[in-house]
């Protein structure tokens, strides 16, 4: 039996002991314990060290709001989950947990560390450090601070667990299964609504789980929870989700839930996912999220053993754990009295209830009950400091006089110091939904105001004072939400509840300290981020007034805490310091997640191969078998090159290029975007859209098309073939396929509704095999039927239909290499076989498969542009050297009026030209800048940039394309490409480097 475990009571299963390990030592707890409860039962209060100052920290709370007791749970090398709150970890047989941030060690005396680091870490130290010498920051300070300040360490191995995701719809989503949430779910279900009820804990009941003596409808609270749960569970229209955190609210009642499925199991079944992410879309949402007790702010309030009063009560009533032997209770609200009464009855000596309020405000029912029970109570008290090293051993109290003066009153021995500063409603989700917040001055906290979406709040989050009020509020919200969602009315159940009232209001801020005296220790406002009253005061002295600025400067309320325990105290302190009211100081935004969510649950199955859809071309498997190297082009896997026998990239590309120039190459061009444009007005449509004149294009012929935006800049390009009077086959760039299709739809649907035209994306319907090179016709001749391949019958830019190996084929005579070329289109399902057949037939002609790298070199040798590489969204057809394609007689096309703007007609625009390095062996960097004269001082006068640059094997030298100011007029000039160490001299040339008269193309 652990020393601090009571002999009976609580909701733990004493028949099921579990053994677990914390920091290498074995402990025992019971099923139903949290790690925090089981450690406290063994007298362990020191659980970690703080973020910045490495102060020893213990357990402050009993739930999700715990800022200190963050631990790492270890299942194996890959399954290490850091930053879990010990107050939420369910113990299981064999659980292994480790403390975090325990440098240099968990038990080391605090003084040394504090002295060493305090000077480094004032408020805003992140910002201030940037003013240090940069070299020192990188070499000295940053590594040291990073090593010293921080939370848990992320696992270094891939996550082996599975995560599921699910979408769900319901009429009413209830967040929180405390008394109000249970009543709300029951109310909504009674009206026939489809209900989802979720709660972050493993059992429903919320605050009732820590109550003794409460009754509802003449049942003990524990029995009522069982009955309520059973009724909801038996209703097929109700989904119950325990261990499920509503971590974020997204617009239009989209709520993110994270369900933890196996983390509490000693041996998780392999069939189960670890977590499930629910994306719930609810017609109505009810936030029954309760309220969280606030710490009091005084020097030394962070020592292990200083704890929220409600937490001590929870550990006793729910887990059968005494948090200490002798307690001093600091009461900033009546809730402290309720805790003191329960602890006294549970065998903990109450040395004193030191009420920090004036006598008149310490008169609630709980206070009266405590006095009646004979507990010592003093009012108008304050805490001046605590003593102890790794655990609190005493508290120094002061008394506040009528004039506000403070004099020492007593130093009391204790091994636990309980505090209650009042309650803060958990308005996080309501606030995330952009619901208004109102400051309830009497309660001393922000409460939900007007909702912005179809949401409502119920129970403790609305600062209800009694159990009966919370139940009534929940029931009313439940039936109202059901009515709004479904139109079905029901009467709200009237609960008869009995529980001594404990008023939960308090006063946020810091306890008063003697004027002028230097406090003996830091008074923490934000335990997790180590933010003290001094930090907040410093931020104000340095000119930060807005709470949003103070938050960022001091980091208060950031990280996983999100202000749960710290937010209102920070506001209260700043308000008092600046003599403003809390609502005047403002409120920082609540961010999701409420508590941290694993990346795994967000990723779900979208990992590895399933991370993004993968698009494979028909030749894919063949290329894999050949050892080809792929590159990602959008979602496509394209073959980059085919190395033979350990060839380098350069050697393979040189070989592939020369093969195309000398014999024949084959290339998988299936990724090209393909759109079929059909209808009576198909030609008119393309005339209005593209710069070209399509009226003069005969069926069976193709033309290079250019598409602009209406601003006159090049948007896409591609070969367009007229298959029939009313039918065009439009090709686009690989990356532009979807957006060109969208642009066409836009004009058809919204601008030119007078046209009779339809478009269909056929990108994936056709496999496209480019056959390029002087022997291309020879390869094809033995395979095709029904097509006359002769130059007269099928000249450059002609299209024919026929068969290849018996497969229906659309054959384009086109070239993106400058050689005699064909593009063989077959239905995609025949692509792989056709590819293999061409490759086999081509062996006699030394056919060579080539990849995108060689394709780029070949087209650059011919000066063929790639939209998006040689153009950048600010280039006109003239800039890119393709103005010849514009149909001059057309009165309008998309971009024509844009091109007429003065700025687009200036002679000093950047124009695409060729660059030949004076040293033919030098290959320029793509993206490099170009200048007119060498040796310029910074800033250089840049006149352009390199857009494409390769080694050309057929020319035996490097080639480049570049966009140069007034470039064409500079042909023959020597320019310079400044690079580290040297300015590289280059000569401006026409952009076509090979076969300028096109003899090979027309062979």
């Amino acid at each position, binding site marked *: 039996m652990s020393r601090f475990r009571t002999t009976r009571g609580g909701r733990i299963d004493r028949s099921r002991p579990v053994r677990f390990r914390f920091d290498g030592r074995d402990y025992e707890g019971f099923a139903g314990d949290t790690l925090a409860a089981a450690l406290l039962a063994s007298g362990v209060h020191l659980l970690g060290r703080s973020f910045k100052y490495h102060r020893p920290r213990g357990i402050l709370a009993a739930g999700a709001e715990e800022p200190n007791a963050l631990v790492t749970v270890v299942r194996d090398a890959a399954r290490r989950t850091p930053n879990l709150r010990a107050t939420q970890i369910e113990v299981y047989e064999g659980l292994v947990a480790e403390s975090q941030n325990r440098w240099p060690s968990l038990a080391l005396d605090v003084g040394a560390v504090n002295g060493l680091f305090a000077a480094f870490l004032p408020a805003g130290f992140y910002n201030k450090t940037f003013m240090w010498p940069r070299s020192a920051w990188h070499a000295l300070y940053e590594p040291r601070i990073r090593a010293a300040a921080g939370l848990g360490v992320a696992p270094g191995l891939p996550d082996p667990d599975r995560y599921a995701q699910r979408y769900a719809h319901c009429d009413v989503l209830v967040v929180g299964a405390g008394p109000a949430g249970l009543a709300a779910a029951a109310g909504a279900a009674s009206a026939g609504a489809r209900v989802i009820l979720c709660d972050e804990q493993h059992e429903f009941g919320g605050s009732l789980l820590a109550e003794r003596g409460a009754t509802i409808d003449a049942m003990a609270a524990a029995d009522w929870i069982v009955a309520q749960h059973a009724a909801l569970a038996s209703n097929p229209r109700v989904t119950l989700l325990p261990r499920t955190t509503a971590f974020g609210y*997204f*617009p*239009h009642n*989209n709520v993110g839930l994270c369900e933890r499925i196996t983390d509490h199991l000693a041996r998780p079944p392999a069939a189960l996912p670890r977590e499930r992410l629910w*994306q719930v*879309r609810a017609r109505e949402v009810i936030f029954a999220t309760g309220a969280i007790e606030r710490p009091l702010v005084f020097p030394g309030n962070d020592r292990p053993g200083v704890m929220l009063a409600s937490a001590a009560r929870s550990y006793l009533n729910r887990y059968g754990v005494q948090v200490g032997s002798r307690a001093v209770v600091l009461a900033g609200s009546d809730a402290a009295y309720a805790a003191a009464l329960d602890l006294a009855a549970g065998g903990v000596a109450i040395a004193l209830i030191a009420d920090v309020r004036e006598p008149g405000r310490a008169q609630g029912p709980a206070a009266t009950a405590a006095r009646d029970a004979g507990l010592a109570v003093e009012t108008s008290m304050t805490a001046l400091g605590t003593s102890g090293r790794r655990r609190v051993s005493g508290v120094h109290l002061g008394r506040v006089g009528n004039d506000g003066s403070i004099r020492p009153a007593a130093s009391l021995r204790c091994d636990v110091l309980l505090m209650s500063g009042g309650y803060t409603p958990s308005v996080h989700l309501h606030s995330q939904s*952009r619901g208004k917040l109102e400051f309830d001055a009497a309660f001393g906290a922000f409460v939900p105001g007007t909702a*912005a979406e179809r949401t409502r709040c119920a129970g403790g989050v609305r600062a209800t004072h009694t159990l009966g009020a919370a139940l009534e509020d929940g029931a009313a919200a439940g039936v109202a939400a059901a009515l709004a969602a479904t139109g079905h009315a029901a009467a709200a159940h009237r609960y008869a509840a009995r529980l001594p009232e404990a008023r939960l209001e308090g006063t946020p801020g810091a306890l008063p300290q003697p004027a002028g005296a230097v406090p003996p220790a830091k008074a923490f406002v934000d335990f997790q981020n180590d933010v003290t009253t001094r930090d907040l005061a410093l931020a104000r002295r340095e000119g930060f007034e807005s709470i949003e600025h103070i938050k960022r400067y001091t980091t208060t309320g950031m990280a996983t805490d999100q202000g749960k325990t710290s937010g209102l105290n920070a506001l209260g302190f700043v308000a008092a310091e600046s003599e403003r009211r809390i609502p005047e100081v403002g409120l920082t935004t609540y961010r999701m997640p409420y508590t941290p969510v694993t990346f795994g649950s967000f990723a779900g199955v979208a990992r590895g191969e399933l991370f993004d859809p993968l698009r494979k071309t028909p030749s894919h498997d063949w290329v894999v078998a050949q050892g080809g190297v792929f590159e990602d082009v959008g979602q496509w896997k394209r073959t980059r090159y085919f190395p033979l026998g350990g060839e380098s990239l350069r050697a393979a590309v040189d070989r592939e290029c020369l093969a195309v120039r000398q014999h024949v190459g084959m290339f998988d061009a299936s990724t090209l975007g393909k759109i079929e444009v059909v209808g009576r007005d198909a030609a008119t449509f393309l005339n209005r859209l593209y710069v070209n004149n399509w009226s003069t294009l005969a069926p069976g012929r193709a033309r290079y098309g250019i598409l602009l935006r*209406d*601003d006159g800049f090049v948007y896409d390009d591609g070969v367009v073939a007229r298959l029939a009077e009313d039918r065009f086959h439009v090709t686009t760039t690989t990356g532009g396929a979807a957006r060109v299709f*969208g642009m066409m*739809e*836009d004009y058809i*649907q*919204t*601008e030119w*509704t007078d046209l009779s035209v339809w478009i269909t994306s056929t990108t994936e319907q056709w496999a496209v095999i480019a056959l390029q090179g002087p022997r291309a016709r020879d390869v094809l001749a033995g395979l095709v039927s029904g097509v006359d391949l002769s130059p007269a019958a099928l000249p450059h830019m002609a299209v024919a239909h026929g068969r290849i190996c018996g497969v229906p084929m659309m054959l384009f005579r086109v070239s993106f290499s400058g050689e005699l070329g064909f593009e063989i289109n077959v239905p995609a399902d025949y692509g792989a076989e056709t590819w293999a057949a061409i490759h086999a037939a081509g062996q006699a002609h030394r056919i060579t498969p080539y990849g995108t790298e060689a394709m780029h070199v070949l087209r650059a040798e011919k000066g063929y542009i790639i939209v998006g590489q040689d153009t950048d969204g600010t280039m006109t057809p003239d800039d890119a050297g393709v103005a010849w394609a514009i149909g001059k007689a057309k*009165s*309008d096309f998309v971009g*024509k*009026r*844009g091109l*007429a*703007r*003065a700025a687009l007609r200036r002679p000093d625009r950047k124009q695409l030209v060729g660059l030949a390095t004076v040293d033919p062996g030098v290959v320029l960097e793509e993206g490099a800048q170009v200048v007119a004269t060498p040796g310029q001082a910074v800033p250089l006068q840049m006149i352009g940039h390199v857009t494409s640059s390769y080694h050309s094997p057929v020319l035996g030298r490097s080639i480049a394309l570049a966009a140069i100011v007034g470039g064409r007029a500079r042909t023959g000039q020597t320019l310079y490409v400044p690079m580290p160490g040297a300015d590289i001299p280059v000569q401006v040339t026409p952009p076509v480097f090979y076969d300028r008269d096109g003899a090979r193309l027309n062979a």
Partner: protein
Amino acid sequence: MLIIDCPYCGPRPELEFAHGGQAHVVRPADPAAASDDDWLQYLYLRDNTRGVFAERWRHARGCGRFFNALRDTTTDQFLATYRAGEQPPAVPRDRP
């Protein structure tokens, strides 16, 4: 994630849609006759409304249709969706 009511398909989640910018921007019938200033207005200048804004959406991963919507930019609530070419419906003065 917003719920958007496609006039052709009904309410669907936002991820099925693509935003298409301000609605009712008409391409000049005779662009050649448009002044530089007119063309500037048409190409680049858009309202940045705080409140009810008429905007284009395309049900890109659904029916593919373009349509228009009235959305309150301060609350992200849709007041109406309607087909391209239709005039925006009147917004009730006492809207939520």
